[in-house]
């Protein structure tokens, strides 16, 4: 009864200061372009901030590519690399591609599946989050991670790996790798919209691990595996990075770009349709 009594006396506990009421004009639901843009930016900013704070995500994905590159390209095989520049460049491309796979696949795949289960997507839909801001934020977060990974990789390659990379090559590789993270986002998104939170991590690993090892990313493959390596997006991305560094590569750049773009657009379209229908 105490609650009911104090309800009749609004001053029983601190009553909020009077505040300005809502906008009652017919334009109340209309958002200026500037504010809309700020909403998209806020979503991306907080998504990135939060993923940086998950140390189990940010430290491995940001540090591992350059650390592994230094381990293999400098500590273990430094002498071989100095005698044969192409080996050094090969290792650089391998870890650069490896670096941008993780944030996209895990940042998208596992987090979307979990957040779907936790009701966050439903809340975002009920709230007036601008259309697509949730996915766009994750995309920008991944691209920011890819950018940082490339900066650390290039710094390591120039300072410790003794790779003679020109500024133009560095810029090209960075742009290719940042855009190259998109098909991995799409794979993660596809899994994240279909699997439960726990299953999503398993499914992502089920694709991540073979893609890393049997696409020819790190070492030459036996012939029977080499024939099927073009099914992996990593293969196409690595060929583009080879090209950007002036190395010889298989196939045509346009075909590699088309495959990566196809994977991105196709899987994203399937996922977005499912999100819209089921949530």
């Amino acid at each position: 009864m105490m609650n009911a009594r104090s309800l009749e006396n609004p001053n029983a506990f601190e009553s909020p200061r009077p505040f300005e009421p809502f906008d009652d004009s017919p334009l109340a639901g209309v958002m200026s372009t500037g504010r809309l843009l700020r909403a998209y930016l806020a979503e991306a900013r907080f998504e990135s901030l939060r993923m940086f704070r998950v140390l189990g995500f940010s430290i491995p994905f940001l540090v591992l590519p350059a650390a592994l590159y230094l381990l293999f390209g400098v500590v273990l095989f430094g002498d071989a690399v100095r005698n044969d520049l192409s080996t050094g460049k090969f290792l650089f491309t391998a870890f650069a591609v490896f670096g941008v796979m993780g944030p996209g696949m895990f940042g998208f795949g596992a987090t979307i599946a979990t957040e779907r289960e936790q009701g966050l997507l439903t809340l975002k839909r009920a709230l007036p989050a601008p259309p697509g801001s949730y996915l766009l934020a994750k995309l920008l977060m991944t691209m920011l991670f890819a950018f940082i990974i490339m900066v650390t990789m290039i710094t390591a390659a120039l300072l410790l790996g003794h790779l003679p990379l020109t500024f133009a090559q560095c810029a090209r590789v960075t742009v290719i790798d940042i855009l190259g993270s998109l098909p991995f986002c799409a794979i993660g998104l596809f899994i994240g919209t279909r699997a439960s939170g726990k299953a999503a991590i398993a499914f992502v690993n089920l694709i991540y691990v073979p893609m890393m090892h049997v696409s020819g990313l790190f070492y030459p493959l036996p012939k029977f595996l080499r024939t099927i390596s073009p099914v992996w997006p990593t293969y196409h991305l690595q060929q583009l990075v080879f090209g950007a560094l002036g190395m010889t590569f298989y196939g045509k750049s346009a075909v590699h770009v088309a495959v990566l773009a196809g994977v991105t657009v196709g899987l994203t379209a399937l996922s977005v349709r499912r999100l819209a229908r089921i949530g």
Partner: protein
Amino acid sequence: MSNEIWAELSGVQKRFGKIVALDGLDLQVRRGELFSVLGPNGAGKSTAVSLMLGLLRPDSGAARLFGKSPLLVEPRRQVGVMMQEVTLAPELRVREHVALVASYYPRPFTPEEAMALTNISPLAARPYGKLSAGQKRQVQFTMAVCGRPKLLFLDEPSVGLDVRARETMWATLRQLIRNGSSIVLTTHYLEEAESLSNRVAVLNKGRLIALGSVNEIRALVVRKYISCSTALAADQIAAWPHVESVTRDQQRLEISTSNSEAVVRRLLAADSNLQELEVRRAGLAEAFTELTQEAA
């Protein structure tokens, strides 16, 4: 309150597989009212709210928010939402969560204003994951009001709150209503609905079984409760006409009846020493139980 309709379901049918969640439901939420949607579990309360928010689409009939489809973002920019089951990023700080949601609205409170309003300013720098369950609900409530909404949907808002936090929430709700906002409250906590609501809808099995002010709903139930101190025996009174049940708690008798006047007259005639006579109408909780049992 005015007759301006802000949210509306008309003739809405919604099935989930073989289960009929809503069976031709009509509901209207008007400007400036606190509208409570009550019902036992599975009555269709959440489905009704989800339809008004555009989270579900009706199989037939229509849902409207400010006269528009709730699937559009524009009407939803005038709405604040607090859901029952949601897990927010534990790594973000309270202020960051509020700032993010405020950014979705055209003319929101600043995060500082919103947090001051709901009395959570001291939590601003705390990571959300480190808060108690009650503090998390307070943050979610702040997120619901930070956009300066015309219409607020609250699903079991005070679950897990201590008395003080609940009082602050209710005071904020009262201020919102004074400012002309409307609130749609779904709750199991009937005292909350009884104290705050202008109007109440009672749902059962996807149908509207009662709609009106708290007093009107209570009046639907004719039963009244008489209590008194008397030497009369309980089983003797239980045999009188119009008496439905009698319970004794030490000296006091509690009698439930459909005709309190007749029973009181007879009580006073039978026991001249009778004391502490009280007659009360069914509360919302009792009315609710009776209405939903009748409909079952």
